[in-house]
């Protein structure tokens, strides 16, 4: 099958591979420890670990956009900030 129309590049392929690995990892985690580990965190509503991943990814997207718009095109710092943010979400939300 020819997928050249999808215009793949190495960075975008790595990006989607990372997302796929995260989802796979979440699947394995759920298999090992079913139930999603629901809890009420600092946002005062119940979240499962799937919710926390969603909040982490969505927040990371906006961190990158904000960095791009306000600081500049060097996104490595935005990535580092996103990782810290995701750890915070998984720890406290």
């Amino acid at each position, binding site marked *: 099958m020819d997928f*050249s*129309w*999808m*215009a*793949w*590049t190495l*960075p*975008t392929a790595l*990006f*989607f591979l990372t997302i796929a690995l995260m989802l796979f990892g979440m699947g394995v985690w*759920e*298999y090992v420890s*079913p*139930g999603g580990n629901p809890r009420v965190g600092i946002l*005062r*509503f*119940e979240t499962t670990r799937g919710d926390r991943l*969603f909040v982490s990814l*969505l927040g990371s*997207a*906006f961190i990158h*956009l904000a960095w*791009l*718009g306000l600081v500049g*095109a060097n*996104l490595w710092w935005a990535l580092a900030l996103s990782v810290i943010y995701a750890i915070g979400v998984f720890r406290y939300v």
Partner: protein
Amino acid sequence: MEKTWNNKAWFMVLPVLVLVAFSAVIPLMTVVNYSVQDTFGNNEFFWAGTDWFLDVLESDRFWDALTRNLIFSAIILAIEIPLGIVIALNMPKKGIGVPICLVLMALPLLIPWNVVGTIWQVFGRVDIGLLGRTLATLGINYNYVQNPLDAWVTLIIMDVWHWTSLVVLLCYAGLVSIPDAYYQAAKIDGASRWSVFRYIQLPKMKRVLLIAFLLRFMDSFMIYTEPFVVTGGGPGNSTTFLSIDLVKMAIGQFDLGPAAALSIIYFLIILLLSWIFYTVMTTSDAQG
């Protein structure tokens, strides 16, 4: 009863995953790929990095269209949700009036979006339209082709006419599911009409209202066909919403890279706002 965990059930979800992959994931991946490249056609692409995202974020055109979208959705929700509730509360619950009202309510929903746009485009015309001519006869200076305010009013009335029925039908479904015993108990207690609404009907409608709210928000925020047919984004750019701007960029100008970047930002905004609405409403539902 204790819940049984059976992870093999996840295999039952596979057909849906395949379907979603073809209808949503693969197109979304392609848009992401396009957003970091430039193309002049012929399936040739050149790396552009984050340039298109930067272009979009720094353009007034994007922020103006986003503001219009947010204002439009806010107005639509502020009108359609209360109006839908009021109409649903006043619809008959028994007798021949029920099917008549339901059919009347369903009619606008059955009309294709481009036809709705055409109906209102003709309806509002000052030279031949019933609305335009009537207002002109009454001495009201109405012209949606030239006046931005008139264009906005026309689009809002059109959307209210088209979609309030959806809110009505959802609310009505919530109302008819309330057992008579609730009303009888309220009557014995001497509850006022407002108390019945506040403590019986509204709580029972919460879930359907959540669906109505989300559906109307997402749909109004992504509105394209009706304003495109009625005003084409004008006069000037006064009714150019993000979707109209996106199509102009992608198809009109063949700027696929910037259009893809705009699509992703647009998608993220809808995702964020929908998640916030959903979370706030389900959390208040769980607490209430």
